[in-house]
């Protein structure tokens, strides 16, 4: 079936099997390998994307559900070569080790900071609670989101 949606600011029209998982459509058909598949069952958060601005799991969505939606993946956050403040904060604070969880962490942080521009550390931890990091970098990830929140408030 033809699926039409907006992906990282661009209108997309793609012929896909309606039951294709969104994570596969993004990674294999559209070449956007930022979103990762960790568990494929909704427990790790590595495949998180924004659907109409809200974080959802692309391993638990079917291609047909994309029709008419606005999708943002981690690839859609930077402005050309300039990283988004959340991404830059992850770099500056050493919040990335192997990097597998980072795209999902960044998307979860986006979801939080859109709704709550000035979160407390506990709120950041809760917002990231669905994203598993196996390099145990949680402290620096929370530091990065806190720093990014400050940066984004200063910009706004």
């Amino acid at each position, binding site marked *: 079936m033809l699926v039409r949606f907006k992906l990282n600011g661009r209108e997309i029209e793609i012929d896909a099997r*309606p*039951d294709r998982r969104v994570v596969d459509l993004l990674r294999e058909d559209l070449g956007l390998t930022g979103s990762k598949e960790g568990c494929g069952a909704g427990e790790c958060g590595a495949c*998180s994307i924004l659907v109409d601005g809200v974080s*959802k799991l692309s391993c*638990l*969505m079917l*291609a047909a*559900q994309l029709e008419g939606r606005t999708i943002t993946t981690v690839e859609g956050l930077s402005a050309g070569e300039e990283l988004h403040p959340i991404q830059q904060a992850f770099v500056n604070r050493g919040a990335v080790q192997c990097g597998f969880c980072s795209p999902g962490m960044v998307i979860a942080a986006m979801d939080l900071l859109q709704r709550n521009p000035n979160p407390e550390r506990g709120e950041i931890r809760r917002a990231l609670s669905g994203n598993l990091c196996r390099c145990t970098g949680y402290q620096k990830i929370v530091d990065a989101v806190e720093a990014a929140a400050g940066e984004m408030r200063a910009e706004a």
Partner: protein
Amino acid sequence: MRQVMLPASLEELWALRKEHPDALVMAGGTDLLVRMRATKKDLRPVLVLERIEELRHIELNGSEIIVGAMTSHQQLMDSSIITRHIPALGQAAAMVGSPAIRHMGTMGGNICTASPAGDTLPPLYALQAQVALAGPEGGRMAAIEEFIRGPGQVDLKPGEILKQVIIPLPGKTSVSSYFKVGQRQALAISICSMAVFMQINQGRYIEEARIAWGSVGPTVMRFPEADARLQGSQLSASVLREYGEAASRLVAPLSDIRASAGYRRMLVANLPLRLLA
């Protein structure tokens, strides 16, 4: 290849179900899609309810709170109707999965999955919720404990869907809360959960108590006789300990990968004391 259809109204849904009587009905997909992947040979079509706007609402209507089946867990958490009048349901919704799961998962999906560990179920039992079921021929109502028949089993007739949940508006002096023990603070399937509803009178005596238990039996469990013994008492450690000990003898827990039956009984005996914390 599996067909996936997204009806935009109940009328469209009834027509599609008539055409595809074997179709699976999908709410948020957070359980169904995990199960579907495990059984790859099953190619039944999927009817996704997410575009049916009339299924997504929270209303206060006279003496009832009405929640549409496709209301997400996040919407339950964010609703002032829920947090003000039936906080236990908002607290339970906040303990489902993770933020992204709560954006996807729905009230109706949590009920129809009918897991003994479903977080929103104990509050619905304690609050005496009814479910409104709808089909092409019309609708009917059922009490939540009649509708859920066993683990993963609900009383949906062919062609029916769960449309709404109806919760009687509690009195002004009522309290409700939800407590859950899991292996970690987030993304945890409950080992034992407890929803408490109490109507408290002016002398701080319990007029009515309804306590519902999750993950300690094939479905949510309630013990009306033990609840009745709380009537007329003030909340105290000794009263709650007595209730907890009675309840721990009545639950039917299993040992599984998360905890042993003995540990679960211990939790049932002690969780009521959290009401004093």
